[in-house]
């Protein structure tokens, strides 16, 4: 059982597959190989509902990637620490047992990993979404930082192969969270939200920088 699980959450509906596509991009670029074998496992989950709990079971760190619609420009990334969410942030819908409900249930059953992070990726049509490689390049150092912080280890330097950053990496976020995407999330009131809109200086492998 891998201590770190990266879970792409979504559905095949256009726009809601963003979490899947980013998880695939990180897998293709070799993120698990950045760490000792068996430490990091990447999975795609199709609207897992309560089955999110077994998907995270036994992990020390779970990182969820999911599409978001909050009114911010497409491509904006938000990072939430799920420990900050309380049980009142979501209500059950008859078949809409989503990530928030799964987290609340996991807390009640004391089945959550010690640390659960969610990266919400703003989806939408206008302006067009930045290339997936750009988004993956921003996620890369952030996720590696999360894993280092949680597990306190980092070995095997590895250069990922996302390709260059031909475009501005991520547009500036704006406005307050609004309507949420059918298959996604938006930050809940009271939750600490960190918006990632630039690559932290010095955190990116040389391969990414301005190429």
């Amino acid at each position: 059982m891998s201590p770190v699980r990266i879970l792409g959450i979504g559905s095949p509906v256009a726009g809601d597959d963003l979490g899947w596509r980013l998880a695939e991009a990180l897998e293709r670029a070799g993120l698990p190989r950045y760490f000792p074998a068996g430490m990091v496992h990447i999975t795609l989950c199709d609207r897992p509902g309560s089955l999110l709990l077994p998907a995270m079971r036994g992990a020390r760190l779970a990182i969820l990637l999911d599409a978001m619609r909050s009114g911010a420009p497409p491509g904006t990334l938000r990072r939430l620490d799920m420990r900050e969410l309380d049980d009142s942030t979501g209500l059950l819908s008859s078949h809409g047992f989503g990530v928030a409900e799964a987290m609340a249930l996991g807390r009640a059953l004391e089945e959550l990993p010690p640390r659960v992070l969610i990266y919400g990726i703003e989806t939408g049509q206008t302006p067009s979404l930045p290339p997936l490689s750009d988004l993956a390049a921003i996620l890369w150092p952030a996720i590696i930082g999360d894993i280092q912080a949680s597990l306190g280890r980092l070995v095997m330097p590895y250069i990922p192969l996302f390709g260059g950053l031909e475009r501005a990496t991520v547009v500036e976020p704006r406005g307050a969270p609004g309507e949420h995407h059918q298959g996604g999330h938006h930050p809940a009131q009271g939750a600490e939200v960190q918006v990632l809109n630039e690559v932290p200086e010095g955190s990116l492998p040389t391969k990414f920088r301005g190429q």
Partner: protein
Amino acid sequence: MSQSREIRLCVPVLARVEGEGALDLEVHDGRIQTLRLRIFEPPRLFEKFLEGREYQEVPDMVARICGICPVAYQMSAVHAIEGVFALAPGPWVRAMRRVFYCGEWIQSHSLHIHLLAAPDFLGYSSVAEMARAYPDAVRRGLALQALGNEIIRVFGGRSVHPVGARVGGFHRAPSRAEVAVLREQVQAALPGAEALLAWTASLNLPNDAQDFVSVALRHPDEYPMNEGRIVSSDGLDIPISDYEVHFSEHQEPHSTALYASLDGRPYLVGPLARVNLNLDRLHAPVREALGRSGIAFPSRNMFHSIVARAAEIHHALLEASRLLEDYCEPEAPFVPAIPRSGTAYGCTEAPRGLLWHRYDLDGAGQVRHARIVPPTSQNQARIEADLRHSLETMGLDRDDEALRQRAEMVIRNYDPCISCATHFLTVRVEQR
């Protein structure tokens, strides 16, 4: 003097909302004048999308209608099309389709019992709250749900919107090794399913007998899933091709879901209707467990639906175990189809009840016209009748919160699936 009260429930922040519904309630002199379950989810137009499509595309397209019961849509479709093509897929396909369907019943019923219905009966607002007091019951429910999903995955390739079914059979047959593991899991779950049935029967369910007509399939010698005649508690007994002679749908201005009626009257489909009409077709251990429950079936108490769901989980596990015993891989997992023109009828028992399909196919097997009648459309008029009865029985002088809670409980009890809409109720009560 007019007094208008309004209750608004907060819209969830993070839930995956799949639709919205509302309830309008108008009371004059202590009597209900208006009661409307409003479904304002936009129409989904699947029947039109199917026109002009090849018959091979139909199972995968209709699976997208519902994320909870895609197998039901696939099964009604493939049976209909095979009926026109005079295609007989043989005993292996027939048995494995039944196992596939068992998986869907197990996951859908487990989800509804534990995540949606049980908190109502135990006085909690969500399963997360309930789980603190009943952790073992919730864990048992989650494990059953996961097993149902696993059965679907083994035959369908994935558990949500599976892609394994096709006209003539399956695209792939599971290996003996896969099935051996699956059957062990199914057998290991049997004691939990039996305990679940007893647990649901022990809940403090409201005692509220009502007059309603049950409608379900009935098969000569098995509990109905994929095949049978349509029967009712009023004596109806017809082939599925005669559905349109007796059942009709009409539109109401306040709902984007159609209302179905049987000879002009509301009727019930789903687990309680099935158990009421097919008690003698349940496996003996399930009948015995129901006998020990202290609840008499057939039942006129709609709240016994949760017990019926638990009974069907128990039955589905026994059925899957039976059908997977001595499993052998077939030479081919499907029979090739030769298209023919004609009108195709398919009717199977989705977790929520009768799911009726009709397709007009041309000589190349292209869909000229499609009609799909889902279970919740058939239950919608019954839900409104139940709401009227239940709220009047409880007392219309109760405060808005009590009325809202009871109304939601009544609606949830049907496990409605009209774009999964009726959970976020905005209840407007007008008293004059």
